[in-house]
């Protein structure tokens, strides 16, 4: 019974945080891309456009859901639900931090620790293609059908290099449980180089990390691999007919998939919640210092406002940051929050890379995309796996 | 069935034979699909359904004997099924290209 209650509480917390975060990642994306392109980005709704996601949600809910003629109603409606369901479900096995005890109950920062966690994520992500393919087919539109076809071919193709790239660090970790994989990356070489998979082991997994990230771009249909929704060829690809909440569902699925693959990359390659440098060198102080620094910057700009309302908003942010810094520095919370901070920091960095690339790179041509997967990425991943396996066997 | 239910201790777990019955039912449904469906793709899917049913009984037997061999069998069946799907679908593509039909009753050149 206790188990069920704790799980339900975790479920509620994670669902709330995740869904909010998904909305705000979009805000971050728009802001970052705007600044890359020397624009302002959303700035009308709320201070710095911070309420923009809320406004978007209201807009999408209140819009009319259009049903295209001759569409297969059941599949047309089921597809977005399937997509978002498959995208969200894989979060359930991802651990965010270490175990802690609250009110005498041991709580894991994770919904469930499956001992085939990695396989579970692979399985669920491979199911994600149904949503897109079905949406493309059920819309009864040739553009969306092409988008659906492209996405199913693309996702099957890129799943191979992705799985092979995943397999290499698994060989080193010797377990399929995500928590076990993170635990295997604890510690430091030479006292300061973290034993993350990309830095250490018999064969540093930097190549497989790069391959994984490239494949992850394709799996999440992000630029430069967003062929299924290439707007200049296919209008908007598989979701051209969708509107209202079903359109929002696809958006949510895309961002949720991004979070999932970035989390997996963090856990498998970047040491999960293990800090970048050892505790003995003061990694515990990094979080409060960074947050306090952010607060200080906000405070400074608040005192020297560029726009009139900055005088009010920026000091408010500063207070929030200082409060967070205080939380991070509060000794009883340090063992709980510091790993969480590191995990979120790495995750945010990878998400930033996703956005950064979207702002930077053009789109591939479809045949280039496929031949890149089969002729370069797949052999490279295979080679990497072979070398890793050989070296692991040699060392053990 | 009711008597069987009573004789089974609910705490002891699900009897293996129930899994086998489930497997048999799924298999028969696959056979039914094979016999009564006319789309060649659906017929092919029914073959996959039969394979899955058989896999289920393999795994059930593995549980019964507490041996991993049944799992290995299932694993091989999966691999073969994947290969079979690739070749089979390629054949279907070719057939469709040549005859412009997916109706299995019209693909009968083996006659005479």
């Amino acid at each position, binding site marked *: 019974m206790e188990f069920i209650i704790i799980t339900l509480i975790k479920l509620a917390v994670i669902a709330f945080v995740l869904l909010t975060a998904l909305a705000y990642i979009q805000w971050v994306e728009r802001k970052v891309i705007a600044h890359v392109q020397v624009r302002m980005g959303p700035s009308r709704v709320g201070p710095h456009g911070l309420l923009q996601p809320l406004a978007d949600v209201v807009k999408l809910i209140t819009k009319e859901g259009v049903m295209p003629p001759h569409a297969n109603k059941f599949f047309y409606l089921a597809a977005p639900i399937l997509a978002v369901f498959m995208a969200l479900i894989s979060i359930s096995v991802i651990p965010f931090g270490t175990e802690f005890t609250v009110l005498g109950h041991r709580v894991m920062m994770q919904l469930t620790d499956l001992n085939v966690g990695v396989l579970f994520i692979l*399985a669920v992500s491979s199911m994600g293609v149904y949503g897109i393919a079905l949406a493309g087919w059920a819309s009864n539109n040739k553009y969306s059908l092409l988008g659906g076809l492209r996405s199913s071919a693309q996702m099957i193709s890129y799943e191979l290099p992705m799985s092979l790239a995943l397999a290499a660090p698994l060989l080193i970790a010797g377990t399929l449980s995500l928590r076990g994989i993170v635990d295997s990356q604890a510690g430091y070489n030479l006292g300061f180089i973290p034993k993350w998979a990309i830095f250490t082991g018999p064969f540093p997994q930097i190549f497989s990390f790069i391959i994984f990230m490239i494949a992850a771009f394709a799996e999440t249909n992000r630029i430069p691999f967003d062929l299924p929704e290439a707007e200049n060829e296919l209008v908007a690809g598989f979701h051209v007919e969708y509107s209202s909440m079903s359109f929002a569902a696809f958006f949510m699925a895309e961002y949720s998939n991004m979070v999932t693959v970035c989390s997996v990359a963090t856990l498998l390659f970047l040491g999960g919640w293990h800090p970048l440098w050892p505790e003995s060198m003061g990694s515990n102080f990094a979080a409060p210092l960074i947050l306090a620094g952010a607060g200080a910057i906000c405070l400074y700009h608040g005192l020297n406002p560029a726009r009139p309302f900055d005088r009010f908003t920026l000091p408010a942010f500063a207070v929030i940051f200082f409060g967070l810094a205080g939380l991070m520095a509060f000794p009883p919370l340090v063992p709980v929050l510091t790993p969480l901070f590191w995990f979120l920091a790495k995750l945010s960095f990878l998400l930033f890379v996703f956005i950064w690339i979207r702002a930077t790179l053009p789109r591939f041509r479809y045949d280039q995309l496929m031949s890149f997967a089969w002729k370069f990425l797949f052999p490279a991943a295979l080679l990497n796996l072979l070398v890793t396996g050989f070296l692991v066997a040699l060392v053990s | 069935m009711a008597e069987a239910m009573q004789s089974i201790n609910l705490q002891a777990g*699900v009897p293996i034979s129930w899994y086998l019955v489930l497997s048999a039912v*799924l298999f028969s449904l696959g056979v039914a699909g094979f016999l009564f469906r006319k789309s060649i793709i659906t017929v092919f*899917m029914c073959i996959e359904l039969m394979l899955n049913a058989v*896999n289920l009984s393999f795994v059930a037997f593995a549980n019964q004997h507490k041996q991993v061999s049944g799992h290995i069998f299932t694993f091989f069946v999966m691999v073969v099924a994947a290969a079979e799907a690739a070749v089979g679908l390629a054949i279907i593509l070719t057939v469709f*290209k040549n005859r412009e039909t997916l109706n299995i009753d019209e693909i009968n050149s083996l006659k005479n």
Partner: protein
Amino acid sequence: MDFLFFFLFAFIAVACAVSVVVQKHPIASALSLVGVMASIAVLYLQLGAEFLAMAQIIVYAGAVMVLFIFVIMLLNAGAESRSGRSYAAQLMGPPLLVALMASLGFAIMRGFPGGGTVKFDSFQGGTAQNIGYALFTDYLLPFEVTSVLILVAILGAIVLARKEMD
């Protein structure tokens, strides 16, 4: 708990399987088949075959069935026509099916009157480690042969589907 679990997913599996057979449209059949496979995967978990459960989803649901759907979409296969010409199947099919099911059920009930029982965690030999160990020691030769089979299948598929679709 175990019974509830079994009945729930057995019911889903059978329902989806019936749906596979009776749905008129191939896409619907394919998705129902995915449902069968997913529920069988869950039953695998109960039977202690966690690796196979995941492999089932990845291989069958994630790859094979996607391929099916891909082909269905590519050929734009519609609902099937009614023109059937197999009198043998129509006449003998139903009674044969009943006979098949009856004889299978009879054989199972006769052959496994007691049998064992299945609970969660009653068998823990299905981890990836166990499977891998068995695969690369006792079953190494079949494994290699299978890899050759796959190679041949790849080549066959490429050769068959090579010419451009008109």
